[in-house]
């Protein structure tokens, strides 16, 4: 396949979106859903084609810029609208379209009874389109188009049920928090243009070789870009929008958390690895923020009672792992985790959607339990996702998480301990979720029990496919392979031969030992969860009561929302209020009204001059003439 066809990848979802936007109301639901799915499937097919044609090329040539048209051409500022096809972007579009397609199929059933069916698929396709532009763009500005696009679509989809106040609030929160990140990203872009005179990846990255490591301008650029990544990928301190994003329909959560949106920040940092490598400070910041977020979010996840909220915090936590990997220079490990995480997190969200669907909208795990029987297939797939997320061998999450932890171990032992602690929390809260949802005695309301049903095939098939991917997805990154693992090898042309962060000397023995250790930690987490929620269900209650402070702290998510509310939102509100009542009403309106009053006063004062008597005017004219003429005579 000629790589110029890559333009079709984002084009199909865009077309699907446009058609559904204008004709969706008139088409039947079947046509709308089929159209949306077919668009993404077509993109996936083209992506696979692109993968194979890229694979057929020599590794050093695997970087093709497909020029579509000149977008901005003003003076010395040139931005072509072009797509960059290289192993990284192809991997990303495969994940986005592949997982995205499964989510689309699932949605056709999940959203079947919703009024805004066509609107939903319009947004969903637009979301996919934006994400594809983001990962394919060959310049920061093209990337930014997709970047803003996913921001917009997340706002639209989180607030999809806009009649619900909490949903529209969550949409606004996502938008505003993302805006803070985007501001940093835009500043970073400007600084890049100022420094390199271009926004194209190829020119910027080749220009970066002029700089020595640790130059302040590099650090500034990287940190500004990272602010953007924090907003988009939900890292401390800008993660607050993601847990609230649960207000959207569940497949949307799957799309946001797995295939699109939150991986954008990770992708962007990986894409700019050339710049980050030049700034040890920025790398340190990325690693620390990632590590702290990984543990921070995992601890919150320990006590949450909303099935989707637990998963949301686990996403924040897993994104933390990805940034941790990027921060220690293990870029391909980070991207590997993006991929495996896309599989099992999509699976978990769609699985939780299946549970919620079966229980007619119930999301509180305290009102679930004993669903293993009635929802056998959902349980089965959900368990696969859980094992993958907990990092159990041989599921996908095990390989990617261990590769990250191995790289972190070789760089910074403190962050490694944080990462392992996070892994323990992950295993614990995921199995807490499984035990409370699927085991134990049923705590369903009688009404929910009455409607209880397994999901239809269109929801189950994507679950099965994702469950398989959650197992085999990790095998493309098998560790301990001679010559590096296949995925790292595939990404070599992008990131350069992996500098196996001091790994070779340490030998495989240590790596295997660490794997066994983290596997043991995960199993220990599962065991604790089993002890708490299966063996002695009174224990967590007693523990919660005896450590009330800590428990409430976690339950209320460290009061971060409250702190932000008190420290930022409320002062901002009162400042706005003051600006309104004082500055706007008194100063702005005052000036405007004063101008009006002055003109009116001057008018009524000057009114007397206009007597309407022609004789008066004639006299004035003559007098004026006399004055003018005498002036010339005297001069």
């Amino acid at each position, binding site marked *: 396949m000629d790589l110029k066809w890559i333009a079709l990848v984002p084009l199909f979802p865009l077309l699907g979106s446009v058609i559904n936007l204008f004709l969706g109301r008139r088409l039947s639901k079947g046509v709308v859903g089929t159209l949306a799915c077919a668009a993404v499937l077509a993109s996936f097919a083209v992506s696979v084609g692109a993968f194979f044609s890229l694979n057929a090329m020599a590794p050093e040539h695997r970087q093709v810029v497909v020029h579509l048209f000149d977008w901005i051409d003003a003076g010395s500022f040139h931005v072509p609208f072009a797509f960059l096809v290289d192993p990284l972007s192809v991997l990303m579009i495969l994940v986005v379209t592949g997982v995205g397609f499964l989510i689309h199929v699932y949605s056709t059933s999940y959203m079947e009874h919703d009024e805004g069916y066509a609107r939903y698929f319009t947004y969903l396709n637009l979301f996919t389109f934006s994400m594809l532009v983001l990962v394919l763009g060959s310049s920061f500005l093209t990337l930014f188009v997709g970047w803003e696009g996913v921001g917009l679509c997340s706002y639209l989809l989180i607030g999809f049920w806009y009649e619900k106040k909490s949903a529209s609030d969550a949409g606004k929160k996502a938008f505003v928090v993302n805006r803070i990140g985007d501001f940093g990203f835009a500043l970073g872009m400007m600084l890049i243009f100022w420094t390199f005179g271009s926004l194209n990846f190829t020119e910027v990255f080749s220009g970066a070789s002029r700089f020595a490591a640790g130059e302040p301008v590099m650090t500034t650029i990287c940190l500004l870009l990272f602010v953007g990544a924090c907003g988009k990928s939900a890292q401390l301190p800008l993660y607050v929008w993601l847990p609230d994003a649960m207000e959207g329909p569940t497949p949307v959560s799957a799309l946001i958390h797995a295939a699109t949106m939150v991986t954008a920040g990770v992708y962007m940092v990986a894409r700019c690895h050339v710049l980050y490598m030049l700034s040890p400070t920025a790398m340190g910041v990325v690693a620390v923020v990632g590590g702290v977020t990984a543990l921070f979010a995992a601890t919150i996840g320990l006590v949450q009672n909303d099935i989707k909220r637990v998963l949301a915090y686990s996403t924040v936590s897993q994104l933390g792992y990805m940034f941790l990997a990027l921060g220690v220079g293990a870029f391909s490990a980070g991207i590997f985790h993006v991929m495996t995480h896309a599989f099992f997190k999509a699976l978990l969200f769609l699985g939780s959607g299946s549970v919620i669907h079966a229980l007619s909208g119930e999301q509180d795990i305290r009102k679930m339990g004993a669903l293993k029987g009635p929802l056998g297939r959902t349980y089965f797939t959900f368990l696969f996702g859980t094992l993958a997320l907990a990092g159990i061998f041989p599921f996908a999450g095990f390989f990617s998480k261990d590769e990250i932890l191995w790289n972190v171990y070789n760089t910074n032992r403190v962050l490694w301990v944080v990462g392992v602690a996070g892994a323990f929390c992950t295993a614990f809260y995921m199995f807490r979720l499984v035990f409370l949802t699927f085991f134990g005695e049923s705590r369903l309301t009688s009404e929910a029990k009455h409607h209880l049903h397994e999901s239809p095939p269109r929801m189950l098939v994507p679950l099965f496919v994702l469950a398989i991917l959650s197992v085999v997805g990790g095998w493309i990154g098998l560790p301990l392979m001679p010559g590096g693992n296949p995925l790292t090898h595939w990404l070599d042309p992008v990131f350069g031969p992996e500098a196996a962060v001091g790994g070779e000397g340490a030998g495989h023995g240590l790596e295997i030992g660490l794997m066994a250790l983290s596997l043991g930690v995960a199993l220990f987490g599962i065991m604790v969860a089993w002890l708490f929620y299966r063996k002695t269900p009174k224990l967590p209650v007693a523990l919660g009561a005896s450590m009330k402070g800590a428990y409430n702290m976690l339950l209320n998510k460290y009061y971060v929302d409250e702190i932000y509310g008190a420290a930022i939102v409320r002062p901002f509100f009162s400042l706005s209020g003051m600006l309104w009542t004082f500055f706007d009403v008194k100063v702005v309106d005052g000036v405007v009204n004063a101008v009006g009053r002055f003109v009116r006063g001057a008018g009524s004062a*000057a*009114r*007397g*001059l*206009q*007597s*309407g*008597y*022609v*004789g008066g005017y*004639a*006299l004035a004219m*003559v007098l004026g003439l006399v004055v003018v003429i005498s002036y010339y005579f005297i001069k």
Partner: protein
Amino acid sequence: MVPISNYLWVSVILFSLGVTGVILRRNAIVIFMCIELMMNAANLAFVAFARQTHTLDGQVMVFFVMTVAAAEVAVGLAIIISMFRHHESVNIDQVDLLRG
């Protein structure tokens, strides 16, 4: 030969009479006639200068002024007639529709 200053003095006197009339008189038709007087004062000056300088420019200008005057009479009288129909008077002191 009569010196040019004499002509100009006559012109000045006629013009001043016209101005005075426009300012002081209240009857629209009289004002109108005063305006004609001012124009003819200007015409007189034009002709006098033309003769003085032995050129035709001034004379030509007089024809223009006369044409304008004719057009002005047509428009002006129409205004005065409509004013009379409206107010039943041609006293301009009674016409102050444009007062602010």
